[in-house]
């Protein structure tokens, strides 16, 4: 398994995707089944029956419980098995993992960390624009066949608009303006102010305005997975919150090392009732996202075929990108350390005191067969240890 930051909330689905019919989602190489129970609460369980690993998403709902479609094990919303066909005793280990879940503003967030006690919904960034009557929003989501980090980079360096989106949203001048990067804790802000420029067509067409305006882009990246783009135009010299504003919410959820989900919401505080504008935006932004997808997937192939000794040639413009990558690495290291602390090596532990994985079992058998003098317990603990190492200027 690749390295993922797990102690965080990831967007798993749109609220309206999740019904009383179970659906499967893959997040950080963990398959999850999502469904709603009778009081409309959404639930997230490991999508793998404890009995024989059959996907629960292929089962059916029985009231608030989910029945495995293979041999009929039934699980309650907490993941505990409540019925095994043909016997009255429930196996002690017949439980599937239940993931903390929080639903907010149209997105369903799932906590992927090991300890549910760490799952604090107040850590989820502000997304109220998706659900605020003073804002009109357009949504898209797409699976992109690239590592999540490439989408992060894309959103932190918007100079690509001048080249990749030349015929859609591109403006020649974006890269000519400097950026201010601010880094605080796990948040990277990349802010670009473009003073006294013509209003881009979106604003000019919907609001019937012309002349010069101060334009800004500020990407706020809550590493590792959520980027909010605060964008807009204001009268020259006016405060940003008095302008025509856009909030683009981008939630990037890794599927595996080379694929991710991109959840996208574009909200504006102007021409809110202009249905025609909303539909044009839906179509236009869909095209922009397809341009990004094509580029990111091509870049992923470039990354996969690039020799190991070659690295990105980053420039000053990439300051936010580089800082975000470093924060990402720091978070990965922190989690690895925490896991190590929770599962210390136990070199003298007797065999079979806890379940072992297939790889460890093979290694133990190999060691025993070779008569290498190592106990199965030593082999087991080694394998376990390997597994755990796993506002403008």
């Amino acid at each position, binding site marked *: 398994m690749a390295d993922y930051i797990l102690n965080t909330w990831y967007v798993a689905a749109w609220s309206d995707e999740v019904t009383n019919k179970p659906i499967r989602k893959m997040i950080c190489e963990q398959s999850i089944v999502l469904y709603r129970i009778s009081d409309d609460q959404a639930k997230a369980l490991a999508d793998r029956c404890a009995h024989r690993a059959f996907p629960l998403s292929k089962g059916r709902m029985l009231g608030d419980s989910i029945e495995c479609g293979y041999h009929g094990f039934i699980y309650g919303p907490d993941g505990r098995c409540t019925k095994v066909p043909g016997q009255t005793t429930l196996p002690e280990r017949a439980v599937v993992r239940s993931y903390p879940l929080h639903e907010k503003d149209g997105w369903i967030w799932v906590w992927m960390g090991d300890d549910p006690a760490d799952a604090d919904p107040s850590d989820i960034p502000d997304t109220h624009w998706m659900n605020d009557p003073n804002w009109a929003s357009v949504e898209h989501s797409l699976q992109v066949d690239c590592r999540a980090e490439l989408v992060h980079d894309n959103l932190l360096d918007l100079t690509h608009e001048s080249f990749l989106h030349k015929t859609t949203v591109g403006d020649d001048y974006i890269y000519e303006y*400097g*950026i*201010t*990067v*601010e*880094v*605080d*804790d*796990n948040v*990277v802000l990349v802010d670009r*102010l473009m003073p006294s420029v013509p209003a881009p067509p979106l604003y000019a067409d919907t609001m019937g305005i012309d002349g010069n305006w101060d334009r800004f882009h500020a990407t706020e990246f809550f*590493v590792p997975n959520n980027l909010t783009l605060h964008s807009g135009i204001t009268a020259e010299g006016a*405060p940003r919150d008095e302008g025509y504003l856009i909030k683009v919410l981008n939630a990037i959820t890794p599927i595996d090392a080379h694929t991710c989900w991109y959840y996208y919401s574009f909200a504006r505080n102007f021409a809110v009732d202009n249905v025609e504008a909303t539909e044009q935006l839906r179509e236009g932004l869909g095209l922009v996202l397809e341009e990004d997808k094509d580029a990111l997937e091509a870049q992923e192939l470039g990354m996969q075929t690039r020799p190991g000794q070659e*690295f*990105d*040639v*980053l*420039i*000053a*413009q*990439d*300051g936010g*990108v*580089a*800082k*975000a990558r*470093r*924060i990402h690495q*720091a*978070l990965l290291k922190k989690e690895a350390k925490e896991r190590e602390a929770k599962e210390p090596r136990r070199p003298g532990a007797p065999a079979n005191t806890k379940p072992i994985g297939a790889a460890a079992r093979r290694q133990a058998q190999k060691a025993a067969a070779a008569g290498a003098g190592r106990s199965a317990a030593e082999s087991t603990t080694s394998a376990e240890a390997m597994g755990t190492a796993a*506002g*403008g*200027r």
Partner: protein
Amino acid sequence: MWMLERANSLSAAPTMPDGSRVLAANPDSAERGDPWRWSITLHTSPDGVSTSVKTDESFVVHTVELLDEIHCSTVLTRCTGDVIVVAVKTGDALITVPDGPWQRRIHPGDSFVLEGEVNETIRVELTDTQSTATVYCLTPTRTAALRWVP
């Protein structure tokens, strides 16, 4: 490009056993193989906080200016191609721009880097008489601009 990295940033360089920490450097990340040009280090000891600079002298010359109660409000002009780094030693400082609303207060352990190919001006105001800050100006000797490399 301006880079304001807070002391509590998870991207900050680690503190060494002797209490020192690289506050800002070019390149900021050495692992990609870009040639090293300069670094500014923060030293923390029981006596307080100090900073020092190291440069590739064949490529960069530098000046150091200490801001204290005599220079409680200073206008800094960064010439085309130069890099300026501001680090607070004690107290705090307010950084503002003359023609805009942008302002940030910086503290010991924070670093503020300004670079680019167009000259620009900022104002650094020390908050009180106890505050001190150091300003490093790095100038390229071989190229027109010393561009910061992340």
